[in-house]
């Protein structure tokens, strides 16, 4: 027998035992980053600095451990942090790779044009780069007004630049975390309860008896606290019902899995309401006391029987009855999880409204084992002169069209930058911090036309990505391990604050976001808004107002405060909800007035075009965004995505595992790169699954040399690239991205014809 390495071993076991390796060993081999002088570093022997993770938006608090040579050696969760309870997810544990990544942006860059018209970047000093930004922003102001300079941001670096833009006089801003992610869910819950959910979602899973997940992939999304909570639910033998066209990780751990036909969730939700109302499984006292419009809802759902829904969802009526009864049996300790990335089919506010209504019928809101009431420490805002009032803001762009546009709608802000846009709210310059619209906002071809039409673009980030190549100026930001940001004030069961403090000095010439924003502010004449030199002064002042200090927070990392309000509704408590009627609105009076459906209805989304497969995208546990793919530790866990196809589809196309294929969408767009096939029963026969964030093609030239995320460049296919059918949610303006289809190409479409 020949020598076996692990790869051969997998081939054998793949045939015999049907096992598949999730974390393969890598081909890109390089030595570890840290010196070997101290082989192991135990936490007790290390110096530690408090941090708040930025590898995803869950923002877990942890400790950075350093050795005697001041090298970062590990990041471990803070035991008293309710976001992580001392245990980070793989991304948090591997977070130090964000710091050690040698492909990071290292110096400011300025776009230059050579004599032959070729454009590239040259390394610049901070002064040079900041001067160009001052000139560029002032130029936009002179020609179009400050409002025409838009800010697109993400994460904890965002607030520094929001402050800068508001101080300067532009409130044309948004983050993809809204319109491309959770805005529809917030809108659905606000319309029902008069209150949104925020992050982390206040689901009381640790006390629940029944948890229902619709297209929400706890365990693949690694929303840390919730992953941990679900684990305790499994320990307690609770019921988990997972609705998903894909056999997700949580589907495998569920009591029951309902493999729904994509795009038909509202039909299922309405049928559940039908059973729960008609079989009187709802919480009668709760519904009578706290809700508005029950009779209307009861009338409304009569036509949505499980038998009707079965034909639409492909879930047998018996399973719909059974799951509804399980939910009713658990009431009020039943949670129909609101999900997070809910930008699916363009009727997403209505779908999440249906989820909110179902929770109300079950009496879950404000109840133990349902949704708890959060409390948050209010830190006083820093003192500065009032912000100038812009002539127009993001609200003018979106609020008139969408009454529930509760935050800047990124796709519409971007649209106003199109050359054909002739309205009064033109966007002519864009400032991006920690966000890459090519991957995060759908319809890549349009996004490119928008970017090409801009007169000035600034990018502030830690890594080069697609957007970097469109910038006039690029500024290298320090990673979260090297910078100070706002105090994390989380709304949770116990009000608490957490400190992100720089563990080490920024590598190369990178700088923290607060410093960058301040320097730009000073150049734009905004001294009054920056009456401090070091952001630490602001934080120390804020902390002292609530009885803490920087000194204390450096020692504690996380500090809890006593709760002042009840966590659940008291029995028969009178409670005023922040809606027109003061009740939980099963029938939305606002929606009725604004011309939206006051109660959710099912509308078909159209079927898969002949010859195509539905494109389902989603997270894998070891990555968050394009930005995390090049993190050497996380890249090591998953360096290449696979296209999931059902064995039936594989047979039709004659596909084999590991075969290289390309994708084409109905508009004829072909993927830039190929992807390897993974044949698995876990995916529905008429769909494919693509892990999100891959297919990076952000390559820039700096002083004649290529700079890119070399571990991930060209690997796999970007879901965003394949999405061309964008369905706009009328209530919010959010982008529905799940009604998209692809065809599998087995021949290389880029192969050059050879002549014999």
């Amino acid at each position, binding site marked *: 027998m020949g020598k076996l390495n692990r790869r051969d071993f997998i081939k054998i076991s793949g045939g015999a035992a049907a096992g598949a390796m*999730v974390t393969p060993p890598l081909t*890109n*081999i390089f030595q570890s980053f840290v010196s070997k002088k101290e082989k192991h570093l135990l936490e007790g022997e290390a110096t530690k600095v408090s941090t708040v993770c930025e590898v995803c938006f869950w923002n877990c608090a942890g400790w950075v451990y350093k050795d005697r040579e001041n090298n970062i050696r590990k990041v471990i969760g803070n035991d008293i942090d309710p976001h*992580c309870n001392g*245990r980070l997810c793989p991304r948090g544990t591997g977070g130090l790779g964000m710091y050690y990544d040698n492909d990071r942006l290292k110096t400011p860059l300025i776009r230059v044009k050579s004599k032959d018209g070729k454009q590239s970047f040259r390394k610049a000093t901070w002064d040079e780069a900041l001067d160009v930004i001052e000139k560029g922003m002032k130029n936009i102001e002179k020609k179009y007004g400050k409002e025409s300079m838009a800010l697109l941001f993400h994460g904890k670096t965002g607030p520094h630049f929001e402050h800068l833009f508001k101080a300067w006089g532009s409130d044309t801003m948004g983050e993809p975390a809204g319109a491309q992610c959770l805005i529809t869910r917030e809108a659905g819950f606000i319309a029902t309860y008069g209150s949104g959910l925020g992050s982390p979602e206040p689901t009381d899973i640790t006390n629940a008896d029944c948890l229902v997940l619709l297209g929400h992939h706890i365990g693949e999304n690694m929303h840390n606290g919730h992953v941990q909570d679900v*684990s305790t639910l499994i320990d307690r033998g609770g019921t988990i019902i997972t609705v998903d066209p894909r056999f997700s990780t949580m589907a495998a751990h569920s009591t029951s899995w309902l493999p729904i036909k994509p795009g038909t969730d509202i039909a299922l939700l309405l049928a559940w309401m039908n059973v729960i109302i008609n079989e009187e499984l709802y919480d009668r006292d709760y519904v009578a006391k706290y809700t508005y419009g029950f009779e209307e809802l009861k009338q409304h759902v009569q036509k949505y029987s499980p038998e009707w829904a079965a034909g639409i969802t492909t879930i047998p009526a018996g399973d719909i009855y059974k799951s509804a009864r399980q939910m009713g049996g658990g009431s009020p300790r039943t949670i129909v999880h609101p999900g997070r990335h809910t930008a699916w089919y363009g009727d997403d506010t209505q779908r999440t409204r249906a989820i909110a209504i179902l929770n109300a019928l079950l009496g879950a809101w404000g109840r133990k084992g349902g949704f708890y009431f959060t409390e948050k420490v209010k830190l006083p805002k820093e003192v500065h002169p009032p912000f100038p009032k812009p002539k127009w803001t993001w609200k003018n762009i979106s609020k008139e069209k969408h009454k529930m546009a509760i935050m800047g709608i990124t796709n519409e802000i971007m649209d106003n930058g199109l050359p054909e846009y002739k309205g009064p709210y033109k966007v002519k310059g864009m400032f991006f911090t920690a966000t890459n619209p090519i991957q995060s906002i759908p319809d890549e071809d349009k996004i490119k036309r928008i970017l090409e039409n801009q007169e000035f673009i600034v990018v502030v980030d830690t890594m080069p990505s697609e957007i970097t190549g469109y910038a006039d100026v690029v500024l290298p930001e320090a990673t979260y391990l090297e910078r100070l940001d706002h105090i994390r004030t989380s709304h949770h069961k116990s009000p608490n604050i957490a400190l992100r403090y720089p563990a080490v000095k920024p590598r190369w010439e990178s700088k923290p976001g607060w410093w960058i924003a301040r320097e730009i502010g000073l150049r734009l004449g905004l001294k009054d808004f920056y009456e401090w030199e070091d952001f630490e002064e602001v934080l120390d002042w804020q902390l002292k107002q609530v009885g803490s200090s920087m000194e204390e927070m450096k020692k504690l990392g996380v500090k809890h405060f006593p709760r002042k309000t009840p966590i659940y509704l008291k029995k028969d408590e009178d409670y005023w909800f922040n809606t027109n009627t003061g009740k939980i609105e099963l029938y939305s009076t606002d929606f009725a007035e604004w011309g939206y459906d006051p109660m959710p209805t099912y509308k078909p989304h159209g079927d898969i075009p002949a010859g195509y497969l539905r494109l389902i995208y989603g997270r894998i546990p070891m990555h968050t965004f394009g930005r995390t793919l090049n993190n050497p530790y996380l890249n090591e866990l998953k360096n290449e995505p696979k296209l999931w196809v059902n064995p039936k589809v594989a047979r039709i196309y004659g596909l084999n595992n590991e075969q290289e294929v390309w994708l084409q969408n109905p508009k004829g767009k072909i993927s830039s790169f190929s992807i390897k096939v993974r044949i698995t029963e876990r995916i529905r026969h008429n769909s494919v699954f693509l892990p999100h964030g891959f297919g990076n093609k952000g390559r820039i030239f700096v002083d004649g040399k290529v700079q890119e995320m070399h571990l991930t460049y060209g690997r796999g296919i970007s879901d965003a690239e394949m999405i061309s059918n964008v369905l706009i949610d009328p209530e919010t303006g959010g982008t529905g991205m799940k009604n998209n289809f692809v065809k599998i190409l087995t021949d290389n479409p880029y192969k050059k014809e050879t002549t014999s």
Partner: protein
Amino acid sequence: MRYGMAIEVNKCVGCADCVVACQIENNVPMGYSRDWIMEHVTGTYPVLNMHFESQRCNHCDDTPCVRTCPTGASHVIEGGIVKVAQDDCIGCGACIEACPYDARYFHPDGYVDKCTFCDHRVEEGLDPACVSVCPTTCMHFGDLDNPDSEISKLINSRENFTLIPEAGTAPQIFYLK
């Protein structure tokens, strides 16, 4: 004293936190790993089962790796932890061939490397790195000889399996269903 692990596959989400934590804790060079995740799917859509297994050296009671080692570099320390003495290892690879779990690899510095159950942490009363980070707390480490240890209680009260039992190595990692 007999160290072992119990891993609850009904809770594991296959996130690979154990893999990255090990890599960082033990300074495992990029491109190599001491532990890894396997995904097992059975059935046909929509009647399916799946579980993940976090795998590593099983620190077997009957150790073919130690038996085949010509220099004595592969050895067993107190508590049944199987280790490799780097200075004594000549990198012949006999142990790699002998291990039914493919749990050993050639370290680029010229010796064979593998999971140590983080004995440097265990000595200090800490859990191995993989166990200590697991967000689902599906991994448990402890003394199998002590009937009152958490791990003994788990193994005694739950249906469980070991990997490749037919190899006859008496593996000490138990997967709980």
